[in-house]
């Protein structure tokens, strides 16, 4: 399973992704009518949002990944096994970097993202 994150000519290859999750919010509008019924106007749900935890083998690569995500840029996530998680995204929210609590010299980068379509 290979994960790559690219932005322009920059590519990062984390060892693994942990705690991947995505959330979408319905766009449908429910109109409450007098008398209890509803009318509905249909709209697409929002694009996916959530967070990615990316594991890097050393501090320098993790910090480079964090710095790249801190710049004004669009990213692409590629995943050879779980292709459904592939997406184009931007950072939307927190961007964290921290050493692993147990393993030495292994660093986590956590990115809160919003998918672009």
């Amino acid at each position, binding site marked *: 399973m290979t994960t790559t994150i690219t932005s322009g000519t920059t590519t990062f290859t984390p060892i693994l992704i942990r705690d991947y999750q995505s959330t979408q919010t319905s766009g449908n*509008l429910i*109109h*409450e*009518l*007098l*008398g*209890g*019924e509803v*009318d*509905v*106007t*249909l*709209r697409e749900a929002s694009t996916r949002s959530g967070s990615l935890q990316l594991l890097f083998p050393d501090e320098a690569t993790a910090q480079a990944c964090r710095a790249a995500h801190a710049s004004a840029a669009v990213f692409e996530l590629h995943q050879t096994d779980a292709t459904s998680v592939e997406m184009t995204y931007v950072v939307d929210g927190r961007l964290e970097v921290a050493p692993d609590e147990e393993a030495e010299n292994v660093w986590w980068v956590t990115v809160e993202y919003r998918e672009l379509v």
Partner: protein
Amino acid sequence: MISRHLFTLAAANGASAGTLKPLSASLELNERYSPYCRATFTVAMPNDAVLALLNPRGGTVAGVFTVRYRDPIPASAVTALIGAPVTVADVTAYLAGRPISAISDAITPAWNQEDRAGVTLPFRLRVDEVTPDYKRGTVDITASSFESRLQEYPYPGTGVLLAPGQNIGFVTRLVVRTVIAGTEIEREGITATLPEEVTWAEGTTAWDFLDSILQPAGLTLQCTEIGVWRLIPANATPTTTYTLDRPTAIEPRDNRDDWADAAVVVYEWSDGTTTHKQSDITYSGNPQKIMIVRHTDIVYPGPGAAAQLLARAQKQGHDLNVEAVSDYTVHPGQAIAVSSPVTEPETARITAVSFTWPENRMRITTQEDGA
């Protein structure tokens, strides 16, 4: 009822045009207000070239509200039904002997038991104000129909004298064309003539001058949301009725705010040496509440304006505002029949409707029936 509402918006200035990304929109049609159509939009910040098109000194915005009550027919659905590759001959052979409704039913999912055709509301408006917000990355736009061209045109010459007996429709076209060359005005059936000699005086705007002759004749000049000028009887009897049986809100209110049983229109003008004053007064019985309108710098055009004002004012006092999911067939001048499980049925005349997007709600303002 299940529906889907779409909205597109573009900016134009001269021969240039650019697409806008709308975030919200509100568009009102109001037969009691000039301009007839007023709108506000918030759009995502466009590039500098498109932003420049929105300059109120020449900029226009055009758009379309669309509502659908079933999915559009995708080409892939037709291909799936008939078989690929689809040629014109294939389609012809398939359609032979079948009603179109059977075909559309076969390939599009109906959202509602009662099938309805989709509706569009296209518009083109003059940009009045543009406010970019660089922090939010948005632009607020206000726009309206083209009556403002007449409202912003004070007569620059020494005055135009118009003889009595001239057709008011013809006079209206003459005035509008003085401001906007080549304008056509829908004015079928307008036979009213000028009762007295009138003067379009220096400094009086085209709109104020027209108002002074149209109001006594019971006429209204409108520029519609798509830029069609029309001269119509004010408070014409509705010819169509909109049935609203799925309201989200009904707000009746009785009051004396705009009601009156007497009307006075006062005209004050100067001929260069003397100031003149003349009033037009109408009332019924022993009046309780008098409405007074003053026109300065407008020559007395003869009686009639007070009677028109009174006819309208006597219908005021019972407000009925209703809300529902937007239906872009609604427009001022229609009758409306409102019913709901919790209120008595009521009929009224639509005087204004305001559509909001992406809320997809409309708010309808009415006045008492029979006007």
